[in-house]
């Protein structure tokens, strides 16, 4: 169920997806296959946390219910989170991690490109800043998808398996809902169908270069991140991420 006005709901979706994707990337800290990769994964995570802060600060101002951006991130339960199901999925191996990242980056890139022209000035400002960073993210993840897909026999096999695991969660990237349709009609965001079309074009191009087959459109799913109906992995991720704030409420650095 949607609790807030359309724009605040949408801002939570953007902010929450960035927080959760960033948190998943942090799980690679100390475990990445190479030092350079570790730095890259953490850098991307850092960019996403910064973007999340910008979105959630704006949300907090709009909601004006006494909660700060930090409290929105650290004191909301799973059902109140509005992130994409894709980003909450476990990291799996490096193939799954990079494929998830690529699907998210391609979506993020097109979403932000459109938001740069938003009728809401604050949204346009935050998006313009984030887009510069996400362009680098997309360039890197497309590069990895190509290298792994069109790499060794093992890397190719792993990418095929990763595609099998991850693809079903792309259904949310391909569809909007009433909130998004209304915001699109008001010129605040792009029409969901337009993002879907652009996303599929980018993804098809990269997967083909990676010698991977683009699966048919994923069937709709009974869960919906937009409405706070998540897969079971989100609760575990939040429990770890929020443990300090839960144990020591209002603790500051």
């Amino acid at each position, binding site marked *: 169920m949607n609790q807030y006005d359309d724009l605040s709901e949408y801002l939570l979706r953007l902010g929450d997806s960035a927080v959760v994707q960033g948190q998943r990337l942090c799980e690679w800290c100390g475990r990445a296959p190479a030092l*350079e990769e570790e730095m890259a994964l953490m850098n991307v995570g850092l*960019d996403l946390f910064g973007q999340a802060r910008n979105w959630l600060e704006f949300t907090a101002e709009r909601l004006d219910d006494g909660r700060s951006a930090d409290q929105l991130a650290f004191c909301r339960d799973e059902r109140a989170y509005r992130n994409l199901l894709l980003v909450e999925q476990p990291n799996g191996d490096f193939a799954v991690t990079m494929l998830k990242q690529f699907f998210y980056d391609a979506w993020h890139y097109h979403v932000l490109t459109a938001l740069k022209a938003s009728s809401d000035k604050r949204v346009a*400002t935050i998006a313009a*800043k*984030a887009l510069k*960073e996400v*362009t*680098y993210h997309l*360039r890197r993840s497309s590069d990895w998808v190509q290298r792994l897909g069109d790499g060794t026999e093992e890397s190719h096999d792993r990418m095929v398996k990763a595609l099998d695991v991850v693809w079903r969660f792309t259904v949310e990237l391909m569809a909007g809902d009433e909130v998004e349709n209304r915001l699109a009609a008001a010129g605040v965001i792009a029409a969901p169908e337009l993002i879907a079309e652009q996303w599929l074009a980018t993804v098809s191009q990269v997967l083909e270069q990676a010698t991977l087959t683009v699966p048919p459109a994923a069937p709709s799913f009974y869960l919906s991140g937009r409405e706070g109906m998540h897969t079971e992995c989100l609760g575990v991720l939040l429990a770890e991420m929020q443990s300090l704030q839960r144990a020591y409420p209002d603790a500051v650095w």
Partner: protein
Amino acid sequence: MPSGELPPLSAAVIELIGSDRQGRAGSPEDIERAWSVLADVMDPEVPVINVVDLGIVRDVRWSAGHLQVIVTPTYSGCPATEFIETLIEEALTTAGFHQPVLKQQLDPAWTTDWITAAGRENLRAYGVAPPVGSANKLSLLATASEIACPQCGSVHTERVSEFGSTACKALYRCLDCLEPFDYFKCI
């Protein structure tokens, strides 16, 4: 201490509180002096470039009797942003500015195009290759053309990683002198 509500401050008193130690408020010379103080505040992560040459100080002005400094973050999640603001505040306070006010502004988004020529030269001399080309002309999948090695000047270099030790840098290696080096990414 007297009890009850304090009377509102008159504009003249606010002006006085806001003025610096010399008792002057908001003269053009003060603004100029503030800029020169800022030119001595170095980026903590790349300590050879000051915040003015880095292009993150967007404006210095007087507002309600206080010196106001507008800064813009380099990256949305740059962890040095708050630290830089503290350094700026300290430097201005030490220079005699009373309670300077720091404000963050995202728009327009920072670009490496704002790094000054002096800043670029300092980066290169320090061993960090400065950004090449204009951020406006970067396309999504195009990689930067020729990145010159800051040690030997050779353009025979290769990228090791798009992401380096801080958000703003990428990692490169020189194929002639074999030195690895940081490249300040163009964004």
